[in-house]
């Protein structure tokens, strides 16, 4: 991954689609699949991850000249774990219902490889402004991916969207979609669509050039 010649805008935009953390890099699978059974849970998990990623990138980037190379991973983990503990307490205080539903998966944001990956690959090597742009881009990309999965699962599995029924009473919900297998299937099919589009585009480019 080249980190030298990025313009600010490019750093922000690349996380949304071209280097989307979920669909392209396949990082952070565990929360992606575990808590995306409804759109609201997806949004809560994505916001929590966004928060942690943003502040970890800020601190890692600020401290990048202070942190000794030998203990950098441990330092990153301590920084990340601090913000995860914060977000865990914040959610418990603000939205206890959602916090209860997400349970231990909030704490598991610590081991989301997306966050540690961005610290190692980007924040530790770049100025604060650029590191924050990258965190925002990747955080939004993660949010988009989680919401896409959550929306598909909630509509098919429950006939509703953000708890509002949209498919009517005659719709027989596909219970499997809100259960664990539904997570695997939804992400599998979304990746399939993603790959197909990417391949079409590559083929079209090859013909025109």
């Amino acid at each position, binding site marked *: 991954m080249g980190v030298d010649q990025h313009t600010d805008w490019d750093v922000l935009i690349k996380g949304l689609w071209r280097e989307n953390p979920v669909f392209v890099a396949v990082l952070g*699978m*565990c929360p992606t699949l575990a808590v995306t059974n409804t759109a609201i849970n997806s949004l809560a998990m994505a916001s929590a991850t966004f928060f942690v990623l943003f502040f970890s990138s800020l601190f890692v980037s600020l401290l990048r000249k202070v942190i000794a190379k030998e203990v950098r991973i441990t330092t990153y983990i301590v920084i990340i774990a601090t913000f995860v503990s914060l977000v865990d307490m914040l959610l418990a205080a603000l939205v206890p219902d959602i916090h209860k539903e997400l349970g231990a998966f909030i704490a598991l944001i610590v081991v989301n490889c997306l966050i*540690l990956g961005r610290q190692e690959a980007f924040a530790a090597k770049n100025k604060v402004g650029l590191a924050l742009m990258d965190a925002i881009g990747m955080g939004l990309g993660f949010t988009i991916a989680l919401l896409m999965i959550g929306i598909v699962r909630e509509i098919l599995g429950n006939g509703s969207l953000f708890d509002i029924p949209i498919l009517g009473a005659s719709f027989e919900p596909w219970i499997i979609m809100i259960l664990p297998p539904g997570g695997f299937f939804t992400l599998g099919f979304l990746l399939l669509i993603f*790959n197909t589009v990417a391949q079409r585009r590559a083929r079209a480019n090859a013909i025109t050039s």
Partner: protein
Amino acid sequence: MAQELLWIFISALLINNFTLTYFLGICPFLGVSNKVDTAIRLGLANIFVMIITAIAAWALNTYVLIYAPYLRLISFIIVIASTVQFVEMAIKKWSPELFRALGIFLPLITTNCAILGLALFATNKGYGLLEGIVYALGAGGGVTLALILMAGIREETRILDIPDSVKGTALSLIIAGILSMAFMGFAGMFSAA
């Protein structure tokens, strides 16, 4: 007591399988499980680290964290990672044979969400030392089982004619979905009894 322990074991092994129903440890599940042989060794290393984790988590919970519960997450991660490092060095010295079998997987596994998940779930359920170890055995066995099943199926898919866009992660996820559905059957096995 014995019945309760057996129940914890079966529940973690099959019904609440870490990989297929909690989605913990998905990274190695999707990334590494290409060969049955590798899957077995990775699974064994997993069981091993999980047992150490269960003991470490129990010790932390009993002796340290009652005084400072807000340090739970940070101390879990650091203590688990360093304990595994120490044990790894010890094994390297005393049993090169075992080290070669588990080898490179040990440090990788430490940062795996299944390990932290185990520590957190065991804490949330209030397990003691013995229950924790049995839970770790069940969970580790479950992860191993999922890894081996996945690797076995993927070995077979290599000789199939698969469209390019399905190859790779998409195919693995769909296989995982079907496996996960199969494991849901175990939930019915006990509710009837």
